[in-house]
């Protein structure tokens, strides 16, 4: 069995008590960001890690990743270093972050000078973290749209099961680079005001930033109340731009995830939906749940709290879920009322008292990427 030892998250929600209070009280307000490439420079809501330094995100990536890792390691190894045989698994919707600056400089006719690590591109940041913390296990960087960091998490678990490594550091990374917000704006997938998962008046997603880190090991190395039970990742070849609104692909991954984790639907305490607030995406997800379950479990979306953190959302939402349950609740999903009339059941309307149980986490993305996994928290 795989133990989840703990997690760290940098998001718009702040940290510690502040973050728990926001989740408990259903309060979170996004910042705004202007899309300068459009003639009218429209403003879109955006959940930012730090409103004051939004300009130079690309220059601070290593710093953010180091911060969450340092916090995680100092908690988990009480100041000492993690074993060298720790693998690093990083998921992000952009493998190109490290390429951005040098390419821009070269296009502008400037010499980027000697690049750190001599080379940039895929795997750059995972390598920097390994260097910084003296880790020598294998490493992989995942780029599967919105399922990137949850796929990294699941493969890390497989690497542990194979006894290739003793610990796994899993990381999720998503920052507000101009190309990302422009892209979603021109795809017309952004809400101009409020993220309303599964709501009748839903009008798109709101993006968010998140940098997260989670530490895993086999339960025979160290025990924890939190375990990874299993999951599945599938490719739905309906359309490169989104799931089949009929829900077939989503139902398939949910069923396979239950079967891999050997969990029956009635054993699920709650389900963390992807819940983007996108018109077609929420429809596909609801249809998928209707197909996969006779009774849809209590479900909720965390995106109204931190936004859609794209490739980072897999791990960021996993950390939030663990924190909420550790604090005795599952948060209500704000702004879902009135529910879309086509839907069978609404998301969780008021906070649920939950201290332990089995939780399904679902994620769906561009490129047909669908992932579902199941975690368990045993009775404290």
């Amino acid at each position, binding site marked *: 069995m795989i133990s989840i030892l703990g997690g760290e998250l940098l998001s718009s929600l702040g940290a510690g008590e502040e973050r728990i209070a926001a989740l408990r009280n259903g309060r979170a307000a996004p910042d705004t960001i202007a899309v300068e490439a459009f003639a*009218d420079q429209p403003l879109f809501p955006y959940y930012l890690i730090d409103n004051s330094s939004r300009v130079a995100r690309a220059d601070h990536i290593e710093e953010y990743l180091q911060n969450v890792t340092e916090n995680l390691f100092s908690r988990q190894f009480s100041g000492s270093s993690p074993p060298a045989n720790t693998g690093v698994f990083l998921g992000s919707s952009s493998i190109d972050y490290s390429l951005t600056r040098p390419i821009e400089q070269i296009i502008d006719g400037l010499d980027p000078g000697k690049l750190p690590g001599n080379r940039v591109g895929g795997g750059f940041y995972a390598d920097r973290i390994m260097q910084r913390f003296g880790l020598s296990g294998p490493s992989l960087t995942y780029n599967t749209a919105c399922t990137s960091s949850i796929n990294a998490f699941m493969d890390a678990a497989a690497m542990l099961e194979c006894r290739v490594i003793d610990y796994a550091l899993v990381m999720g990374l998503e920052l507000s680079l101009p190309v990302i917000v422009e892209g979603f704006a021109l795809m017309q997938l952004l809400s101009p005001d409020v993220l309303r998962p599964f709501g009748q008046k839903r009008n798109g997603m709101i993006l968010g930033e998140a940098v997260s880190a989670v530490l895993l090991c086999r339960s025979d190395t160290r025990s924890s109340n939190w375990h990874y039970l299993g999951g599945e990742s599938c490719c739905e070849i309906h359309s490169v731009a989104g799931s089949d609104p009929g829900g077939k692909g989503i139902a398939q991954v949910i069923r396979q995830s239950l079967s891999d984790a050997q969990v029956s639907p009635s054993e699920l305490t709650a389900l963390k939906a992807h819940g983007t607030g996108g018109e077609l995406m929420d429809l596909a997800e609801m249809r998928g749940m209707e197909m996969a379950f006779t009774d849809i479990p209590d479900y909720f979306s965390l995106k109204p709290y931190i936004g859609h953190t794209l490739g980072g959302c897999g791990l960021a939402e996993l950390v939030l879920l663990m924190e909420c349950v550790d604090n005795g609740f599952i948060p209500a999903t704000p702004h879902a009322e009135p529910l879309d009339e086509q839907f069978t059941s609404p998301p969780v309307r008021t906070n649920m008292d939950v201290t332990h149980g089995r939780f399904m986490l679902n994620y769906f993305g561009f490129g047909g990427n669908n992932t579902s996994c199941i975690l368990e928290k045993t009775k404290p």
Partner: protein
Amino acid sequence: MKGSCDMALKLRLKTMIIEECEKEHIKPAEIEDNVLLFSDDSRLELDSLDALQISVALQNQFGVRIPDSKSFRRHVTTINELADYIQPGVQ
């Protein structure tokens, strides 16, 4: 000149649509000025992603921003309408 009367503009739009939507097997002359671009029985067989692709090309090439491609698809249904949208002409 009103866009729908501007043959050069209309040819440019047709070529743009063919290019952006990778429909090279169709010649600009085969797209009639009054045929519905986004209907299911249109030879172009354009979908919502094509509509987005076209709306971005319109911004890039003509400086016209289309914030909502769904309402755009409802209101601008033919080459003539598209040409008038871009070039309303002087009354």
